[in-house]
């Protein structure tokens, strides 16, 4: 066991202090935001955010959940896209990363450059939009919501880096000698040994899908295919503009300011629960165990 010496205590004290301060800075605005999302519009406009509002109102949430079936459907769609998209993306990206990480592959640098070049140069929005909507006819399909955020060059290169540096070359060598094919190496050795990086990249990809409002904004017209963030984004935009652009506006008591806050709460809710599952893979010693087992 670890000997608990003075340096150990000192380090822990520093860790608790620094992380504690940062955690307070992170959690405090979120708490204020959550509390104030239940404040009345009148109070927010007149007095600003408070630690504890005097006039409580669920106006913003009423607006979001005005049509509960719809919000349930939106959550279902978003969860579906996030789960399927992340699974496919993670599987294919990690394969690509594995290929790039193989020192035996002569053109691995050229292939990495082939990928990375697309990060630096792109044709801009117009050709991309025209290609997807006019040539590939992807508009208004669930496929476009899955495909557009699917791969990230950054993520692939990060995985390549992990596989190249954290997995001892000796293991792969001996496996190859034992007659394991490349796909076999990937499935039986590399994947199990890469769980920490797969977990974190999976998290990033899932967040990317969950928070994606750009793809639906550009390519989806049918309301049935609006994912969560875009539904909220639309709601806020229409509240902000309806009073300005619409004549004979029927109601003015729209909770514009509190809606912003409530949106954050609604969008953060379920996805933040994913993180504890990811954390399970950040346990020291995972490599050792896998190699020995």
């Amino acid at each position, binding site marked *: 066991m*670890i000997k608990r010496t003075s*340096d150990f205590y000192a*380090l*822990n004290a520093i860790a*608790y202090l*620094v*992380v504690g301060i*940062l*955690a307070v*800075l*992170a959690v405090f*605005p*979120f708490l204020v*935001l959550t509390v104030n999302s239940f404040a009345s519009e009148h109070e927010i406009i007149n007095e600003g*955010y408070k630690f504890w509002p005097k006039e409580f109102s669920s106006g913003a949430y009423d607006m979001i959940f005005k049509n509960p079936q719809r919000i349930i459907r939106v959550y279902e769609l978003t969860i579906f896209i996030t789960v399927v998209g992340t699974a496919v993306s993670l599987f*294919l*990206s990690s*394969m690509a990363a*594995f290929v*790039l990480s193989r020192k035996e592959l002569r053109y691995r640098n050229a292939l990495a*450059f*082939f*990928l*990375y070049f*697309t990060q*630096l*140069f*792109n*044709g*801009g*929005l*117009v050709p*991309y939009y*025209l*290609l997807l909507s006019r040539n590939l006819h992807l508009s208004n399909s669930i496929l476009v919501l899955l*495909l*557009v955020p*699917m*791969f990230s060059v950054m993520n*692939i*290169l*990060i995985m390549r*880096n*992990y596989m*190249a*540096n*954290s997995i001892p070359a000796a293991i792969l060598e001996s496996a190859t000698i034992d007659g394991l094919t490349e796909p076999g190496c*990937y499935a039986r050795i590399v994947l199990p040994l890469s769980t*920490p*990086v797969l*977990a974190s990249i999976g998290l*990033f990809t899932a*967040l990317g899908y969950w928070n994606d409002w750009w793809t639906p904004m550009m390519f989806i017209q049918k309301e049935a295919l609006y994912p969560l963030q875009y539904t909220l984004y639309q709601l806020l935009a229409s509240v902000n503009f309806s009073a300005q652009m619409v004549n004979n506006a029927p109601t003015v008591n729209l909770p514009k300011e509190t809606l912003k806050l409530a949106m*954050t709460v609604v*969008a*953060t809710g379920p996805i*933040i629960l994913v993180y504890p599952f990811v954390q399970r893979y950040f346990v*020291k010693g995972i*490599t*050792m165990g896998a190699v020995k087992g």
Partner: protein
Amino acid sequence: MFAPVALYFIIFAYVPMAGIVVAFKEYNYRGGIFGSPWIGFENFKFFFGSGKAVQVTVNTLLYNVVFLAAYSFFSILVAILISEMTGRWFKKVSQTILFLPYFISWVTVSAFVYNIFNFEYGLVNTFLKSIGSEPINIYSNPSWWYFILPLFYIWKWVGFGSVLYLATISGIDQECYEAATIDGANAFQKIWYVTLPLIRPTIVILVLLGVGRIMRGEFDMFYQLIGNNGFLMDATDIIDTLVFRSLVGSQDFGMASAAGLYQSVLCFVILMVVNAFVRRYDESQALF
């Protein structure tokens, strides 16, 4: 095994990349991307003729260098500290909590900043007035923003950024630490001599990937926090905000494309230089 990803990038990145030619064209709908007339470098004129090209380029570069350095430093620090913590409960909860700011969009952050700092009834000024001090007006004083912007950047991204370092640290072979303990290293020496060298590949790649975006500004952050505030503009204008302001009215495809190409070329040059430098030092760490 590489084919699906390769195919994706060919279709979704290389095919539309041909559209870069729009930067040199007077775009019209009848001609489209390839049929519109060529106009040479006309589309670049608005940017280089604005009198602010140098200023915003320098601003973009400096802000991003500060952001990248501060973000990397704090992400690594937090990851190491969290991995050294012994209390399981606090360790898990604090990790999740650090992630929360990632979900708060810049629009909401901007409403927060206004509520804290606005001159008439913001929290800070109400407090200053109550103790008899002069209220401060951060929205007309650029020097505040050199600190505020990086602070908010770190605040928002550090939870996100520490995840990858945590993942790498958890991949470190425990035998390395055991060996260090036998050699008599204390907890701090183990961080310095074991953890840091072993996560160096991750640090290098993440910084390199960051360098590849060094000329692309965090548009949302600047736009939401600063907006059209003329007082702060010289200090806080970046390429992305200048281009947005100039083109929001005309939505000229060619001019937008030209500005994007300018950023791409700068990123490309800077990245190639840094990557070559890394290669010379340690070939296995380079991007390509």
